[in-house]
């Protein structure tokens, strides 16, 4: 069953058109990558799904419900969580407070506490730093915190925007490891990456966005062997 579905979505920033026709679907339990060059419209696609940006036309459905007119908090409430580009940690709040904010809409506090414990198990380095201000963490630690914070909401689906950005190769591998664990535990994942090689290693399928349009779709293994992908996104 399709969990997230975009049907020919267009988005404008003022007069500038950023998305010219995005169509994609992510099925339950899948991990799907969204590839594309700088400015292709990957972030805009995620922001439109999370209702930070309004779609000009087209349809977006999450678990069958139309969310193209929803408010961001309704989207979060429905279980679609967006971990933004650049981590966006609340820098003067502690690691624990950042995690608690991830569970803002969860009514039952004991559920939030349990999920925080679970995140500490998955990402032990956060447990040691729970009382530290988020802004003092290293880039890799902040990325882990951003992902952990997204998990506290109890997502049905997680959208991750360039989690490997600015990280050393070893840390990128760790982040990818964490992402595949999250999927193994039952959360559907949509992963935006510039680092196509790292992304295609952990994903089932991928879409390619060029200039605001989804132009290619395929199984990760097929794309890794596709000459057009190799030329454009994997380096020679």
């Amino acid at each position, binding site marked *: 069953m399709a969990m997230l579905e975009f049907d020919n979505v267009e988005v404008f920033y003022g007069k500038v058109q950023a998305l010219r026709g995005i169509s994609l679907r992510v099925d339950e339990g899948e991990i799907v990558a969204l590839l594309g060059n700088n400015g292709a419209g990957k972030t805009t696609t995620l922001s439109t799904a*999370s209702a*930070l940006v309004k779609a000009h036309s087209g349809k977006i459905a999450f678990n069958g419900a139309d969310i193209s007119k929803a*408010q*961001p*908090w309704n989207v*979060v*409430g429905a279980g679609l*969580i*967006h*971990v*933004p580009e650049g981590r*966006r940690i*609340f*820098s*003067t*709040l502690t690691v624990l*407070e950042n995690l*608690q*904010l*991830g569970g*803002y*809409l969860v009514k039952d506090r004991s559920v939030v506490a349990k999920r925080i414990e679970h995140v500490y198990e998955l990402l032990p380095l956060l447990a040691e730093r729970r009382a530290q*201000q988020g*802004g*003092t*963490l*290293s*880039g890799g630690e*902040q990325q882990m915190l951003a992902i952990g*914070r997204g998990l506290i*909401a109890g997502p049905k689906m997680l959208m991750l925007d360039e989690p490997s950005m600015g990280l050393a190769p070893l840390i990128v591998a760790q982040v990818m490891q964490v992402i595949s664990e999250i999927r193994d535990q039952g959360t559907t994942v949509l992963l935006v990456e510039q680092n196509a090689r790292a992304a295609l290693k952990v994903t089932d399928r991928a879409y390619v966005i060029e200039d605001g349009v989804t132009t290619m779709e395929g199984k990760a293994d097929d794309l890794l062997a596709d000459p057009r992908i190799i030329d454009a996104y994997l380096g020679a």
Partner: protein
Amino acid sequence: MPRRTSPKRPTASVTATVCFADPKRILMVQVIWDGLFVGSFYALIALGYSMVYGIIKLLNFAHGDIYMLGAFIGFAALTSLGGIPATLSIGALLVVMLLSMVLTGGAGVLIERFAYRPLRGAPRLAVLITAVGVSFSLEYGIAAIAGPNPRAFPIRLEGNVFNIIGARISLPQIILILIAGVLMILLNFYVQKTSTGRAMRSISLDRNASLLMGINVNQVISRTFFIGSALAGAAGVMAGAYYGKIDFLMGFIIGLKAFTAAVIGGIGNIKGAMLGGLVLGFVEAFGSEWFGGQWRDVFAFAVLILFLTLRPTGILGERVTERV
């Protein structure tokens, strides 16, 4: 630091507190107490200024008029209650203060909803001008309803004056400082420990990231206006009961003072607003003691200008080590 032996120092207030102890020490205690008293008023009002600035980066110049509105709501409520025996005046004050807090809080919410929210995303100047417009509407709205002349507040807090290490400290002052202190402790708890409080802080830092947490930003902004306005309303009732006289322009100067206090502490910072209020209270108390009461406001605004030019982030601003 000004020299203690300034020639402008009035001698009258010194001789009034003649006692057996060291006169200099008596003077200090009295001045510190006066600063604390006035400063806690400033702090209560500065909080609303700072909270609103923190969350939507708006200098709400109508905030001082909410304080005035609070005083007039208190006036109306007490007047309709009729004569209150002096022994009950504290209780009546508390009840009326609560009522006034709810109503000024509601007024703050309405002002945000109808005057400021439609302008979200508009240029700063447009919003600022709107705030000034709201300020005038409140002032002249009240003047139209209650008349332009000062009104005598129906209750006047009276009580014993204690002589504590030489300083004259009155019971009403103690009560009012206690009320202000309790309100600030409650607020601090709310902001530090509750989920809405955390959301207020996160919105101040990053509004879009807060949306991605599922925070209904409009709702949290409304609550911020409610709380900030309620605190100003409480201060208005307290001021009416203490000074005994209210008028429709009473919020103007104190609004500027609260703004000053917020800047001193670091605008947007809640602990900073409390600290800034007290610091401003002390600056004024010591300034008037050393140079004469007529210099009080000059001192306050000189400090404002000093901070704006030398340290616009205030005392507690930008203390955080941040990686980029």
